[in-house]
């Protein structure tokens, strides 16, 4: 019976499964591949100098993977809360529901891990080729297939998937079936205590790391700043719903002024469901915070040391953080699509009371823009704090070097992929038959 249910769930939730699957595959590929490069580089004495950078970029990849996989999975599980509630109302125990969710996650995790490990090898080879081209490792990096990185990637991949599924399952069955069926999201606390405490602790930890940046040895300043960014991201995404609700309210009011009908719809949905909005905003925040910290930390360090990069070596830092950024950008698309797909029924209803397709498209765009904007603001704030402290460590002043085109490019890419995800996911509801078959 559980198997039948699980299979039917997969079939009716293809999109959620595809998104979770893709997220885990890419995560394992990223972690495994970076691991292979680091292990390969460790065999060459002449690569000692860049080892630090390589490890740092591997750590960034790992962090991003965990963050994104956990986010997507919990979104996927919570999105089906109606199904879970229905199952419980016909007599499934919370334990059984929780087992069902875990079993599904396990299947996804195993399949995706295998695929990710296979892809890790060509990915590592590609990275090595890039490193040779940009002059980071002129002699090349020997990529040999060793078991170490795979084991790490597998363990991390499986553990994160299962853990995220368990946490989401607990959340899903923690609410009574009736509350869910009546969709009482409005009545739930915006910030439950555990979440508030975890978020507060992470923010405090981030603040301590920030304070440490100018205190530690100069060599460790940049890694510490990056660590501060990561910890602050965790805190901000825990406390995010509050911030997003505030920003949604403010920016939504502007949108409602510019475009009364569509803007009003966007604002009310953001204010009513800030947690949903935060799941879409948090990959944007992550992308902006991490990429800016990494890129501009290298730039700040270079500037302090009087180094100017020319030719292919300009691309060293962007390349090292590039795959992590591509990954988070994909997850921006992924999560926007998932949060918007949930709204198909609502969009059809809006059409039946006379909302024009154009107006609906604009409402989706406004909402996505506001969410991206909120994510960008949070991410920029975090990166600026870390970079300012790094600047203090390097030059004694709270200043840092940055490149406006790179920053603008990042924000633009996030915005575009958010818009693409939102519009694509709602296309059928906006244009298809009004009564779904």
């Amino acid at each position, binding site marked *: 019976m559980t198997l039948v249910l699980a299979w039917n769930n997969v079939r009716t939730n293809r999109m959620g499964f595809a998104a979770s699957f893709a997220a885990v595959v890419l995560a394992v590929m990223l972690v495994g591949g970076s691991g292979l490069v680091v292990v390969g580089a460790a065999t060459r004495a002449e690569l000692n100098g860049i080892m630090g950078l390589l490890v740092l970029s591997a750590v960034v990849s790992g962090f991003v993977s965990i963050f994104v996989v956990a986010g997507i999975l919990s979104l996927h599980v919570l999105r089906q809360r109606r199904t879970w509630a229905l199952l419980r109302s016909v007599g499934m125990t919370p334990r059984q529901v929780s087992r069902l969710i875990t079993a599904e996650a396990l299947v996804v995790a195993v399949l995706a891990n295998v695929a990710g490990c296979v892809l890790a090898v060509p990915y590592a080879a590609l990275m090595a080729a890039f490193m040779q081209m940009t002059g980071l490792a002129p002699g090349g990096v020997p990529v040999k297939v060793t078991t170490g990185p795979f084991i790490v990637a597998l363990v991390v991949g499986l553990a994160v998937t299962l853990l995220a599924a368990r946490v989401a399952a607990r959340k899903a069955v923690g609410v009574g079936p009736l509350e869910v069926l009546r*969709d009482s999201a*409005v009545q739930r606390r915006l910030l439950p205590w555990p979440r508030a405490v975890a978020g507060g602790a992470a923010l405090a930890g981030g603040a301590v790391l920030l304070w440490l940046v100018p205190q530690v040895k100069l060599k460790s300043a940049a890694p510490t700043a990056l660590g501060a960014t990561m910890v602050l991201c965790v805190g901000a995404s825990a406390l995010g719903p509050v911030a997003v609700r505030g920003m949604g309210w403010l920016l939504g009011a502007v949108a409602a002024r510019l475009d009364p009908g569509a803007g009003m719809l966007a604002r009310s949905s953001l204010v009513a469901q800030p947690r949903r909005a935060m799941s879409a905003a948090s990959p944007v925040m992550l992308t902006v915070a991490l990429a800016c910290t990494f890129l501009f930390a290298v730039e700040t360090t270079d500037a302090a040391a009087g180094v100017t990069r020319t030719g292919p070596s300009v691309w060293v830092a962007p390349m090292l953080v590039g795959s992590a950024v591509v990954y988070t950008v994909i997850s921006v698309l992924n999560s926007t699509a998932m949060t918007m797909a949930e709204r198909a029924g609502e969009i059809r*209803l809006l059409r039946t*009371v*006379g*909302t024009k397709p154009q107006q609906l498209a604009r409402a989706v765009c406004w909402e996505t823009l506001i969410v991206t904007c909120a994510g960008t603001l949070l991410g920029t704030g975090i990166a600026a704090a870390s970079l300012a402290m790094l600047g203090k460590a390097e030059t004694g002043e709270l200043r840092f070097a940055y490149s406006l085109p790179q920053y603008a490019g990042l924000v633009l890419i996030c915005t575009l992929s958010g818009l693409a995800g939102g519009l694509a996911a709602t296309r059928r509801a906006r244009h298809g038959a009004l009564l779904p078959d």
Partner: protein
Amino acid sequence: MVDHAVLLEEVTRTYGKGATEVAALRRVSIGFPRGSFTAVMGPSGSGKSTLLQCASGLDRPDSGAVRIAGQDITRFGENELAVLRRDQVGVIFQAFNLVPSLTAWQNVILPSSLARRRPDPSRVRELLHRVGLAGREGHRPAQLSGGQQQRVAIARALLGRPEVLFADEPTGALDRRTGHEVLALLREAVDAFGQTVVMVTHDPEAAAQADRVLLLTDGRIVEVLDRPSADQIGMRLGGRR
């Protein structure tokens, strides 16, 4: 010639294909005169909801024409349909009527907001009061009972005084007293404002409020009763079961 607010000509609607094919409407032709109140009755699965959906432009029939104010709406594009729904047609469904993120009040004024009109607040208040929702204006759908949600949708459909009102079992989830109030509102729409109402119902007493009752079976209109009493309707339905 009668002035029809809505006119269906040979409307056919078939769901599915091949072995699972279901003919929900078979060449149905019927007119709804302006300023009339029609009840649609028939066994479950006989095509009542489908008739309403096709007549209101929510669904496109496979063949045939649906004329509202003389225009064939089966040829309308999405934008024209949107304007039609916003201004001329009001619909009340069996379920899922409200936008979850909007309050009761916001849901009621939604069509006007979309058309950038500002409805008279006292009329909104009066409507909500009459459907028994005074004091609930600021509540979201999740904080309302099923029947209350449906009444918000009824207030929304009535606010714009559309030419035609389609209601799918509007009193199905209501107690007798609120049900009566809703029927009185629909009757008033017809008598005082000359609107046209088409209502699906299973309740002979509710149908007795109408000027005319259509009996549907297997996607066909099998009988039309003029101003029948509840007893007459009950007997007809009983005879068909």
